[in-house]
């Protein structure tokens, strides 16, 4: 029935392994983008959610939060929100990975003569693209509530680049989470449990100066604080962390790079290892 209609010219086996791997990543990235086109509501975590959070914090909590060293809360908030709107895509990454495992699609991929790392790499690239949307939405809503870039385009681009680097590294943590959990519900919950303290015990929404003494070091060393401080510094927004003596508060940009590289070095190989050995 399936008459052989394949000739050597139909195959890509003559291509170099690197080109083949890049081809696989491209095919799977297209797949993730096609999924978004078919179910655009999956983008709500980088569209509706940042809008909600910014408006809630700006207009509900904002009036009650004083910024040490002065400055408006709206200008302060956006630097922290940027990190949050990127980091909060990680639970979605975990859910997507678990769903592929559950449907058996990952099994099919593992039985194909394709690159082992392509499935996960494509996943993180697609998520990076959604994070660009999240960063854009956050910035636009920020502009609408009165936030401004005070230091010019160069540092601002650096701030967005740092945020996306951190967001991308964080996505690999989401992939690992998805590889070790057994259901989409569990991934959703685990993501929430990890993500909520990570963003809230930081200077993303409130200055650390107001926290109890024992909690301050935790918040000051939290990568979300470093990212928020780095963005505030680069945007020229109020940055109370500049008055904090902890090393990450004094070198926020370097701290973000260190955290991101550390996460990539740990989670990317771990994710690939889990993918290779996953016996389900």
């Amino acid at each position: 029935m399936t008459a052989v209609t394949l000739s050597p010219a139909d195959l890509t086996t003559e291509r170099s392994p690197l080109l083949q791997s890049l081809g696989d990543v491209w095919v799977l990235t297209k797949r993730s983008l096609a999924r978004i086109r078919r179910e655009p509501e999956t983008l709500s975590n980088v569209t509706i959610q940042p809008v909600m959070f910014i408006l809630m914090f700006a207009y509900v909590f904002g009036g009650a939060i004083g910024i040490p060293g002065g400055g408006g809360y709206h200008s302060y908030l956006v630097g922290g929100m940027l990190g949050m709107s990127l980091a909060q895509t990680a639970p979605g990454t975990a859910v997507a990975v678990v769903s592929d495992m559950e449907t058996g699609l990952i099994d099919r991929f593992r039985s194909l003569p394709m690159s082992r790392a392509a499935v996960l790499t494509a996943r993180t690239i697609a998520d990076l693209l959604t994070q660009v949307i999240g960063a854009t939405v956050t910035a636009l809503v920020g502009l609408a509530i009165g936030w401004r870039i005070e230091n010019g385009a160069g540092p601002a681009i650096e701030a967005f680049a740092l945020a996306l680097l951190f967001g991308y590294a964080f996505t690999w943590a989401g992939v690992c989470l998805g590889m070790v959990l057994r259901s989409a519900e569990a991934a959703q919950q685990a993501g929430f449990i990890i993500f909520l303290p990570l963003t809230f015990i930081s200077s993303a929404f409130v200055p650390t100066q107001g926290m109890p003494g024992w909690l301050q070091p935790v918040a000051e060393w939290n990568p979300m604080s470093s990212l928020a401080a780095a963005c505030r510094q680069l945007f020229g927004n109020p940055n109370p962390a500049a008055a904090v003596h902890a090393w990450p508060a004094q070198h926020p940009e370097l701290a973000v790079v260190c955290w991101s590289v550390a996460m990539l070095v740990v989670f990317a190989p771990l994710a690939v290892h889990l993918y290779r050995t996953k016996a389900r």
Partner: protein
Amino acid sequence: MSDNAAIEAEGLVKHYGKTKALNGLDLTVARGTVYGLLGPNGAGKTTAVRVLATLLRPDGGRARVMGHDVTTQAGAVRRVIGLTGQYAALDELLTGRSNLVMIGELSRLTGKAARRRADELLEQFDLTDAAGRAVKTYSGGMRRRLDLAASLIGHPAVLFLDEPTTGLDPSARALMWDIVRQLVADGTTLLLTTQYLDEADQLADRIAVIDGGKVIAEGTPTELKASMGGQRLLITLAEGSDASVAAAALRPFTTAPIIPNDWDRLIEAPVTATDGLATEVVRALDAAGVKVNDIAVRSASLDDVFLTLTGHTAEENAEENEKQEVSA
């Protein structure tokens, strides 16, 4: 090992904790044939397929597919196999055609060839009308067909079908059987797992009955049935008849003791077929005062083979074993 074999496995072992999913499995499948792995859920069928399809590393033993070792030459194995698992491995949100094109491209086809093959397969599997719809709108039978099409897109020499018709209605099942027969006519080697005896009987050239992670019987369906030697006697008693009286009256004819069911008026027993057997049985029952509604003598089925070999029927305990197999 012979060059003629598409699949060869020797002493495959796979443990999950204390459970031995595979316990020294041996298998040889000749090229261009259909080989049926028959066994209840939890027997190790799926684990065997996953090892042969390079998804699992065996803890012991070795296996080759088209001459390539599944552990040391996994990449080469993946270039010649197709796998259709128990659950349709498709992207629910994508269209049927997008799924095929994606899997084609990942199977080392160029984009152009993948699109051409996708259209050919959609046509062959009667899915052209649904090609532009998301897979989540497909019926169970359509999903299985698309899933099978996906595993054929790279034209594999060896195809693994893990319970291809489980959960399908009879017409979808018959359609799958037709497709499988056509595939074989095309020269593809097929390893098929099933818990349905009639399926193995209908499709497979050879069958291995597996239980407890190893092969407990092997041969053509005819050989397996012949190995049970003899015929089965089936009697339906009239209402109010005493099954234990009937069982006692039948004892001289049967080659194994009958265990009568009081709640069931059906008696089934192995017998040695002789001319006039049915007549004599009816006379004996009549003499014992047992009334008979129906009597039949038939050849042993694979069901009987299975029951005799494993001590349980194929579908028995399926429910409780299912979890084990899935988590395996």
